[in-house]
């Protein structure tokens, strides 16, 4: 009985001695619980940071996509601009071809003009020849008139001569007839020459009209050629505008590339942050395993002390 009392007293004393250790274990357990709660909060916060950052990354990706679209738009402008250049080249080529044809036309027109000039000259010469013919005709008519008078005179003389003059009278009559025939012929020729002269005059007028039309045509061709030059000049001017557009687009693209590289850098830094978040998160998960180990060890102290 005494032994039992002594043993109980010893146990009570031991319990009293060990109580501080029990207290420490219980306190550690409380701290551990609190630490775990803080870790839960930290992990949740880290999760939120990660989630928010995922959002930021997503937005950055969207923005970068938009920038890429923007870049593509620039490329489209350049493509359109290039197409414009092609059209300009085609216009220039067509105009040059047309100009070449106009040149040929100018050459042909000049040849025609030269032929017309020659024709005019020939007509002038022809006119002179007609005048000469008309002079000759007039002279022939005058001669025929004189011959006629002579024939009449001869007839009168022949009549005076009587019988002896009969034969002469016949000749005189015949001469008169011939003179009349000549006059009639000359009159005919005269009217024919007049008709030819009239027609030649008309032809000459026509030729003059044609020459005027040709001159107008040559002038028009010249104007057309000048217009073509203006088109080429205008096309060259458009080309300069296109070059300006290309320059502006290139500058914009260069600026865009700078933005791209900025985004690449940002993205690298984002990835670095994500890496750190993941690393922190992974460390957090290893901590939770350690908390379990700590708890597993601390939780053994109170039962041991109680024993």
């Amino acid at each position, binding site marked *: 009985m005494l032994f039992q009392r002594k043993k109980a007293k010893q146990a009570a004393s031991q319990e009293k001695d060990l109580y501080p250790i029990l207290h420490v274990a219980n306190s550690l357990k409380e701290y551990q619980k609190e630490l*775990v709660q803080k870790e839960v909060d930290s992990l*949740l916060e880290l999760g939120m940071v990660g989630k928010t950052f995922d959002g930021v990354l997503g937005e950055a990706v969207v923005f970068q996509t938009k920038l890429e679209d923007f870049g593509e738009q620039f490329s489209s402008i350049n493509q359109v601009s290039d197409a414009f250049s092609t059209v300009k080249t085609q216009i220039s080529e067509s105009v040059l071809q047309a100009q070449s044809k106009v040149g040929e036309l100018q050459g042909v027109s000049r040849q025609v003009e030269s032929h017309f000039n020659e024709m005019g000259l020939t007509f002038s010469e022809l006119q002179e020849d007609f005048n000469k013919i008309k002079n000759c005709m007039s002279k022939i008519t005058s001669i025929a008139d004189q011959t006629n008078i002579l024939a009449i005179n001869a007839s009168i003389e022949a009549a005076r001569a009587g019988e002896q003059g009969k034969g002469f009278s016949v000749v005189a009559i015949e001469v008169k007839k011939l003179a009349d025939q000549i006059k009639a012929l000359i009159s005919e020729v005269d009217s024919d020459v007049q008709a030819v002269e009239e027609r030649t005059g008309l032809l000459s007028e026509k030729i003059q009209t044609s020459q005027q039309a040709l001159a107008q045509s040559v002038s028009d061709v010249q104007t057309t050629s000048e217009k073509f030059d203006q088109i080429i000049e205008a096309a060259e001017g458009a080309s300069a505008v296109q070059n300006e557009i290309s320059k502006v687009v290139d500058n914009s693209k260069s600026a865009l590339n700078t933005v791209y590289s900025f985004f690449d850098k940002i993205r690298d830094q984002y990835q670095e942050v994500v890496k750190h978040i993941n690393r922190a998160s*992974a460390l957090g998960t*290893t*901590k*939770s395993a350690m908390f*379990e180990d700590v708890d597993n*060890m601390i939780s*053994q102290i109170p039962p*041991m002390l109680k024993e």
Partner: protein
Amino acid sequence: MKQFFGSSQRGSLQEATQGLRDPQLIMLMSNPRQFEQHVQELERLFPQVPSIGCIGMSYSTQVIESGVGVVAYSGVTAAANVLEQVSVMPVKYIQRLQQDVKKVSASGQNTICIDFCSGNDACALTTIYTVLKPLRMSLVGGTGDGGRVSANGRIYEDAVVYALVKNNQGRVKAYKENIYHQMGSYRFIASRTDRARYVIGALNGQPARDVYQKILNVSEQEILTQTFKNPFGKVNGNDTCIISIKEVNGNALACYRQVNDSDVLNLLELGDYRAIVKDTLSAIQADFPKISAVFSVNCLFRYKLFTQNNYMRDYLKEMGALNGHAGLVGYGEHFNNQFVNQSMSCVVFE
């Protein structure tokens, strides 16, 4: 070193140990009905030989579901012992392990700790690993059935039994195989947990049951079978420890492993397990051109999954190609200080 595997489908230890000569360590895998008898008989047959035992199915080229299986080693230096009162204070017996480490002159390069546990595995592993970690020594083991384990001819309840096995002729290395991978980007922080009852109350502040059901679109009744395809994964740095769901507990989920407040969990999905097994074999063969033995612990869930999918026989055949493969179907797997579910852990002896 050499590994012996003997078995008897009808539960005859005599038959299972036929041909076993001069073992340096014996591991017994028995059935609930004959466990006690087998432990005593083994001690009688091989007195003074260090031994550990548990209730569970064993396998080599085929699975011994209700009989008895024996794995034994020769060419090793071994010690077996027990940490008792594992549910409350296994650390009270830690000196046993420390003395055994000294006894076998254990080093991380050539010694493995194999354990069978009756429960409170996480606490048991934390305690054991406080001794193993400074030595960089690995641990492979599992949970036995029926809350009973044995060491050196004696049965213990509420205990973890261990064997330190030192390969006298080469290296040892432990492996863990996970046939699941993360599903989507689901990531949760566990809270309102009950560590003692392995309960998860909430995931990211929402009732755990609702979260699981909503994501997988399954009924409450389907949750227990869905865990075969979609267990949870406890994230530990770059590693993932699988956690199986045991039952629905109101709005909470009870698991086969302790979950703590602040544990980060993923939702997992089944991967191409045939390919993953091949990868494990390749990794082992790359590490060990010459293999003496392989002892593995496969989860009961994996056994069921592989059997359902007519793969178990092929699996054992493939593992058998490693030379002398044997193991235990566990109710939980141990890898270093990790207590995991639906996994395979193994030790390879050079």
